[in-house]
Each structure stands twice: as structure tokens, then as C-alpha cells.
């Protein structure tokens, strides 16, 4: 295998009708510009349901330049390409679609661009001046839109990312393939985007391209599937490295600050402070005691839930565990404190993590249920007495009378209408 310089991989999924001719044309073309014995053609047959595996095995048996790379399960287009490249012997890795939609006269340019060491990646383009693409309008729109999104969001300089006609060096493949996550149609784009980010030299050149009948492309998958992949890659490359815990904390706090600032626009801060200062401190302390009384109830409820899930524990210990996790939820954003409780009961009482997380979910469901029942009961009463109109009126009035100090007063109390 060491004398192979160029490995051409042909991803094949149910291609029994075309695969044999494709192989013949590919071998002829490669032989026209490469020395004999310096190239191989690998059929990356991807869990085919038709006769493609048999044909591929026969071709591999007849010609030692042909290899058959078989997978029982469907790997997806990108997955099949990776699987085959890992097993290929060449330093220059090439692949193109088996329907030969791209004119094979471009193959020499594709291979030599990378083999010469001038570039790390070469890709055919249907969207460059000088190309000869001729395609139906539906695909034109979706393809142009797609490539525009990739350039915008993923900072790519290329005109066409999805042309199935590419070559890359072994070095690029080894460096990037562990980071490329998509295993299907987005694999090409992700590879090109990551290569540009990492400073590899990418050459795009115009090709003559002619769409073939059944290209296994559909609009829904393109729009939703590719769209979600663009977002995912954008998130990974541009957003997520910038989100540290500090940033999310700052963003959350900023949001609250804006909310409070908006409130202050409509309410006199001094009036609010006056009201707070006027409160009876003894009664405020009493409210704290009342609230404290709810905590052993939480511990008791948590004990009941864990008991039902097969773990007996102590109410006071569980009250403490809930205290710690709720404190965690206050200190950390995004309910990170929830996991704290699972940790405490695991570390101190050997209750397994799945049960810890599940019991928490049960508790949350009951909490939501309870407050919804409570709110719902009052809401029904309000609707029956026409009280909801008053909330809407109050919000509208508050906006209008925002300049008046002391805010607004509503003259009547809800049930007085009854």
C-alpha cells in the first residue's frame, strides 16, 4: 500500500446501476495522468440494500487498483468517507459523487492541486465565474441561499461548499476529521469551514457540472437539516468558546438589571424605598419564620418521593440537602443547583445519580402542578368576577400614568363586584 500516492474514494449508496461504469471511467481518467501503481480507487459502500456490495466485491477482485470498503450499518455519507479515508493508503485523498455529475476532465486539476503540495484542499465549484453549471431553479435558490448562510455565519470564503468533487491532503484529514461532527451531507461544509479557520490553504476552482436525475437531495432535509447544522457549527465555533460561566452570569444579571431599571422608569425608586422602610420589621421577621416552617415539609415530601423510588432516608438530612441545592440555584444561573442535590444524596447517602435526578424531576412536576392548581383556582374566580379585565386595564394605565408619582390606584377590590 505504501506506493499508493492518491486514494480516490467513491461513496456508494445503492448505486448498482452506475457503479461499474463510474469505476471504469475513474480508473481510465486517473491512468491518463498518474503513473501506474500510484493510485487506488476505494468504493465506500455504505450499508447498501441493493447489489452494489456484490458488484463492488467483484470489481475489487478483478482489478488490484480497486478496493471495496464495506459497512453493514449505514454510516451516512460523511461517516462512510471518513471510514474509507482511514483505511486508504494515499497521501492525497480524493472523493467525488458516483453519478459523475462533475466533468471528469477536471479530475487532473483536482488531484494535482493537492498532490503538488501547493494547496491542502481543493474543491470544485459550481458557483464561480467560468463554471458551466446548469441546474433546476429550485436547487439554484436553495443552494445559493445555503452557501450564503455558510459564508455569513461560518465565515467561509468559498462560493460552493457542497460540490461533491474534493481533494485533501492526508495531513488535513488527520488533523480535522476528529473535530468534524456531522456524518452526513454537512460533512463537506464542516470540513471546509474548519480547514479555513485553522489556516489551511483551500483552493476553489470552477467546474463543469451537470445534474443527474436522482441525486438523493430533498428540499426539506436541506433547509431544516443543513440549517440546524449551520447553527450547530456556528454555535461551536463562534458562540460557545465565548460563553464562560462568568459571561452567562453577567448576561443573566444584566437582564435583571434592565428589568429593574424598566420598573424604575414607571415607579419612583424613592417611593419604593419609603415603602420598604415603613414595613414592620417584627412582622417581616415573622414572615421569615413562617417560610422556615415550609422547609421540613419539603424534606418530608422528598422523603416520600425517595421512599417510593426505593430509598429510605431521613427527613432532616433531606431538608438540609434541599437547602443546599436551592442555595446553589440562587448562586448559580440555569438551575445548576438542581444537580447539587443529586450529588449530596449520592455522596452522603449512596443514592444513585439517576434516582437523584429523577426524584428531582418528580418534585418539580408536583411543584408546577401545585402552583398551577393554586393559580388556576384563583384565575377561575377572577374570570368569573371579571377581574382579569382589571389587570389588563392596570397595565395599560400604568404605562400611561408613569410620570405621576405614586403610580396608580385601583379603586375597587375584586370580589366587591359580587
Amino acid at each position: 500500500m505504501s506506493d499508493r500516492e492518491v486514494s480516490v474514494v467513491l461513496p456508494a449508496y445503492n448505486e448498482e446501476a452506475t457503479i461499474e461504469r463510474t469505476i471504469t471511467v475513474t480508473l481510465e481518467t486517473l491512468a491518463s495522468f498518474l503513473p501506474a501503481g500510484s493510485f487506488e480507487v476505494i468504493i465506500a459502500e455504505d450499508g447498501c440494500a441493493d447489489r452494489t456490495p456484490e458488484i463492488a466485491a467483484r470489481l475489487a477482485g478483478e482489478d488490484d487498483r480497486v478496493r471495496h470498503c464495506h459497512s453493514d450499518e449505514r454510516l451516512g455519507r460523511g461517516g462512510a468517507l471518513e471510514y474509507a479515508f482511514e483505511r486508504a493508503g494515499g497521501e492525497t485523498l480524493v472523493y467525488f459523487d458516483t453519478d459523475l455529475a462533475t466533468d471528469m476532465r477536471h479530475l487532473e486539476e483536482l488531484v494535482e492541486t493537492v498532490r503538488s503540495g501547493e494547496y491542502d484542499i481543493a474543491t470544485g465549484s459550481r458557483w464561480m465565474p467560468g463554471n458551466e453549471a446548469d441546474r433546476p431553479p429550485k436547487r439554484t435558490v436553495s443552494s445559493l441561499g445555503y452557501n450564503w448562510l455558510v459564508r455569513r455565519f461560518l465565515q467561509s470564503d468559498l462560493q460552493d461548499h457542497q460540490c461533491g468533487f474534493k481533494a485533501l491532503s492526508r495531513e488535513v484529514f488527520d488533523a480535522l476529521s476528529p473535530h468534524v461532527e456531522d456524518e452526513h451531507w454537512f460533512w463537506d461544509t464542516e470540513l471546509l469551514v474548519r480547514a479555513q479557520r485553522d489556516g489551511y490553504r483551500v483552493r476553489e476552482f470552477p467546474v463543469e457540472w451537470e445534474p443527474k436525475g436522482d441525486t438523493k437531495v430533498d428540499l426539506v432535509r436541506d433547509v431544516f437539516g443543513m440549517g440546524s447544522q449551520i447553527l450547530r457549527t456556528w454555535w461551536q465555533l463562534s458562540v460557545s468558546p465565548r460563553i464562560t460561566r462568568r459571561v452567562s452570569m453577567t448576561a443573566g444579571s444584566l437582564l435583571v438589571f434592565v428589568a429593574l431599571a424598566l420598573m424604575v422608569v414607571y415607579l419612583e425608586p424613592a417611593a419604593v424605598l419609603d415603602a420598604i422602610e415603613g414595613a414592620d420589621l417584627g412582622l417581616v421577621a415573622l414572615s421569615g419564620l413562617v417560610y422556615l416552617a415550609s422547609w421540613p415539609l419539603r424534606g418530608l415530601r422528598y422523603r416520600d418521593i425517595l421512599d417510593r423510588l426505593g430509598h429510605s432516608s431521613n427527613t432532616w438530612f433531606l431538608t438540609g440537602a434541599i437547602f443546599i441545592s436551592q442555595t446553589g440555584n440562587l448562586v448559580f444561573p440555569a438551575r445548576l443547583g438542581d444537580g447539587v442535590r443529586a450529588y449530596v444524596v449520592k455522596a452522603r447517602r449512596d443514592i444513585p445519580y439517576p434516582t437523584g435526578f429523577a426524584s428531582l424531576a418528580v418534585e418539580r412536576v408536583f411543584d408546577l402542578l401545585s402552583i398551577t392548581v393554586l393559580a388556576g383556582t384563583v384565575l377561575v374566580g377572577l374570570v368569573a368576577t371579571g377581574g382579569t379585565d382589571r389587570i389588563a386595564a392596570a397595565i395599560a394605565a400604568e404605562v400611561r400614568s408613569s410620570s405621576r408619582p405614586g403610580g396608580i390606584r385601583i379603586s375597587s377590590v375584586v370580589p366587591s363586584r359580587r
Partner: protein
Amino acid sequence: MSNDSYADYVAGAVEQFVGDIERVVSDRRAFARVGLGSLLIWVVDVFTALVVFWAFGEPMTVALVAVAFFAVSVGNLAKVLPLSPGGIGLYEGAFTVIVVGLTTVAAPAALAISIVDHAVKNVVTVAGGLVSMGWLNVSLTTAVEESREAGDVDAEPTTPD
């Protein structure tokens, strides 16, 4: 790109989640105990708010009690969105709008009551949390780190024991 293993994972997680809730819900006694316990917990939560209303000199009326139930519930529903630590701001906002809309309490007083009510609850929580951390010898930062890792491990579909 539909990813079958991801779909399996989601299905597995949902199954476990539903299974565990079922175990609590399917038993009538357990459901009643946990359900009543939850209602009681939230009733005490509302009583806390009512004592705060009292501290601000608001006369206790049936209407105020009803509104307090509504304001505390909706305030806590608003907190479900994990936007700020402890839902601070969200609770106050929802609480104030409801109280102003449905009672004779003036807007500044309503906001003041919501702030004090939420602050009292948070102070009690943090105080209880600090005491419990000392008592159970738990470091909050360690707990967060460890449980995050555990959360990742937990992502493997597992069957409830």
C-alpha cells in the same frame, strides 16, 4: 440531520423520566401524600407573603388572600425560566403587576412587598443552605462540578433501579 442514536437517547431519557413519575403517581397513597405535601408547601409560601403584606400595613381581606395566592403562584411560574439566579426580577415583576392590577395596593408598595417577600425567602434559603453545608460538610462549588460530570454520565440511557 436525524441521528438515530440521539433519538434513542431522548426516548430512553423520556422513558425513564415518565417511569419514575409513574412510580410516584401510580400509587394512590404516594400521589396523595406528595400532592398534598406540595400544596401545603405552597400554601405556607403564600402565607409568608401575606405576613409581608401585613408588615406593610395592608388590611387582610378575602380578596387580598386570593390575590396573594395568585401573585405568588404566577411569580413562581415566571421563575421557571432560568434567566437570572434564583429568578430574581422575574418574580418581583409578575408579583407586582398582579397585585397592582387586582388590589388597591399602590404600585410602589406592591413592588416593595414583592422585593421584601422574595428577599425574606432568599435569606432564609441561603441561611439554611449555609447551616446545612456546615452540618453535612458539603462544598457548593465541589458539588456543582461533581454533579455536572454526573449529569454527563447520566446522559447514557439507564434503567431505573
